[in-house]
């Protein structure tokens, strides 16, 4: 996909690069310092653009802000005071300790389940997608195109379309309502394999593999030491996509699990929220739980967002 995007630019780029090698090196150094992608800039434009971005940021941050405020309120204040500002009593710590201690600390159990499903699932899924994508990109073997076609079809199959039949299948295998029923489907990322194949194609140089072979390394060793390392930027992306995908998944665990001890945090919190009509104290449990569940993901998003890009190792052989 990226290849098709780049082709039109190919000819001009090459003529430029062959024309003046040293100029290109200078530019590459400049690119590392900070990209200058604009044709020109002015202070007025900077203010306008930044103002637009700031207004949009308010939209994206308001619900998060609201939940922070709501989590500090008592149930009475929640309804009686302005939602965008603190209430008369600061009840954050009471609320959070109620969240953590309710029902023998079931919230922590849900949280740990989510960490297990998402962490283990994403790690293994990334490794499997990397191995598969590398194999499809770097080897010619019978059935390669068939496999790739099937996986590509898999990218387009709605996840929820397979969840119901998967439940029927897992019920027959006797693993519905177990950790496995959520973990096993999380280990597969067709989109990850697709990304890894593209990335391996573009960055893992065949001459490097050849060099490894001449040194007597086995194919698996070449993949593990060389392929995985060069593919790291793509792997981080695949890992993050899969991590968030599993963490956010709701339909699959909803279909598979009936034992609330196996619930991930999404299912658990919705369970609490569905009780607010009968028991208003669940408002505070839910908002406090939502706040606690957002914090680690928010930190992860901010810290990891710098890794959400590809193309970091281009030129690993040439250098």
């Amino acid at each position, binding site marked *: 996909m990226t290849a098709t995007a780049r082709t039109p630019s190919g000819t001009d*780029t090459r003529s430029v690069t062959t024309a003046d090698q040293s100029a290109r090196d200078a530019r590459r150094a400049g690119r590392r310092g900070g990209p200058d992608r604009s044709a020109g800039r002015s202070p007025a434009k900077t203010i306008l653009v930044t103002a637009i971005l700031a207004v949009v940021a308010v939209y*994206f941050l308001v*619900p998060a802000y609201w939940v922070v405020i709501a989590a500090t309120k008592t149930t009475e204040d929640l309804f009686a005071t302005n939602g965008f500002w603190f209430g008369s009593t600061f009840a954050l710590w009471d609320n959070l300790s109620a969240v953590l201690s309710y029902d023998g600390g079931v919230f922590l159990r849900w949280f740990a389940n989510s960490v297990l499903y998402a962490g283990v699932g994403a790690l293994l899924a990334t490794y499997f997608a990397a191995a598969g994508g*590398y194999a499809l990109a770097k*080897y010619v073997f019978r059935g390669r195109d068939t496999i790739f076609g099937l996986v590509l079809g898999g990218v387009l199959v*709605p996840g929820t379309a397979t969840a119901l039949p998967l439940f029927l*299948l897992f019920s027959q295998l006797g693993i519905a309502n177990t950790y496995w029923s959520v973990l096993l489907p999380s*280990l597969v990322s067709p989109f990850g394999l697709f990304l890894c194949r593209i990335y391996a194609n573009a960055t893992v140089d065949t001459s490097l593999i050849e060099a490894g072979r001449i040194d007597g390394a086995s194919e698996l060793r070449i993949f593990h030491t060389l392929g995985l390392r060069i593919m790291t930027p793509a792997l981080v992306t695949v890992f993050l996509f899969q991590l968030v995908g599993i963490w956010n998944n709701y339909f699959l665990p909803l279909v598979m699990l009936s034992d609330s001890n196996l619930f991930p945090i999404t299912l658990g919190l919705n369970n609490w929220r569905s009780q607010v009509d009968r028991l208003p104290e669940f408002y505070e449990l839910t908002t406090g739980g939502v706040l606690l569940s957002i914090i680690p993901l928010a930190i992860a*998003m901010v810290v990891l967002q710098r890794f959400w890009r*590809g193309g970091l190792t281009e030129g690993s052989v040439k250098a």
Partner: protein
Amino acid sequence: MTATENITTEQGPSSRRRRRTGAGSRAGGSAPWVLIAPFLALFILTFILPIIVAIGSSFTRVTRSGLFGEEGVTTQFAWFQNYAQALADGNFIASIGRMLLFGVVQVPVMIVLCTILALLLESASARWPGFFRAAYFLPYGIPGVIATILWSFLYVPGLSPVIDVAAAVGLQLDFLGPSTVLWSIANIVTWTYTGYNMMIIIAQLKSIPTELYEAAKVDGASSWRVARSIQLPLIRPALVLTTVFSIIGTLQLFAEPQVLQTVAPAIDSQYTPNLSAYTTAFAYNDYNVAAAQSVLIALVAFLLSFLFLRFTNRRSS
């Protein structure tokens, strides 16, 4: 440089094979199969088999004899009976129509919004792009269910500060009424996924060679011109990708309406196709019709993605 790299990798396999046989090394062999085996096994278990099971059970019918099925259960081939039943269900058809309406409005709005944000963030005019990127991307890390819980608190009268603020300036807002609740769901979906799609587009923008921008600068092109003539054409693949994923996602909509159901009476148990299939399976215990519905949902998603891809291919050629 990127272009030459692509060319070499395109030729890679065949030239390598030649070289390999020349060098006499027995590279390859079973290695690719060992590498791909774990993925393939799991893919078959969690994609291929369920699809076969779904198609199989969508064509069969289970009949229980006796008042409570105590005289045994018989399974027989039912041709298109389940499909006929699913398609005869006006509510199910209406739910697909509802999602088409939803998609026609929400997907373009979101794609335009995320493209503009990506272009603005990647223009040198933006201050603190890192902060804004993180802020826009943050909702993607919040599960749809939790996002819906959050927004539902902002939609419910009495709890919502938004409604209070609007009432103060004389606006009567009803986020959960029969005509508005669909767009309230669209808002949640847009809020969740705009940042995610923006990141895909930014990744593609970053792959545009810097030389192109410099050439444009030399030619004295304005930012607007750069966006229109360089950036937009080159991020087309990312736009197509995000649109296809959004179309598929729209038909899968489940968590948002299911969670909002408790506060919005306008959402019935068949509001979206997936909700309909879920209800059929777990409330009516009719797995066969539910399977037929699942197959139909996947087919519609396939058809729409296919039509969209064809549409974009024809326009580009």
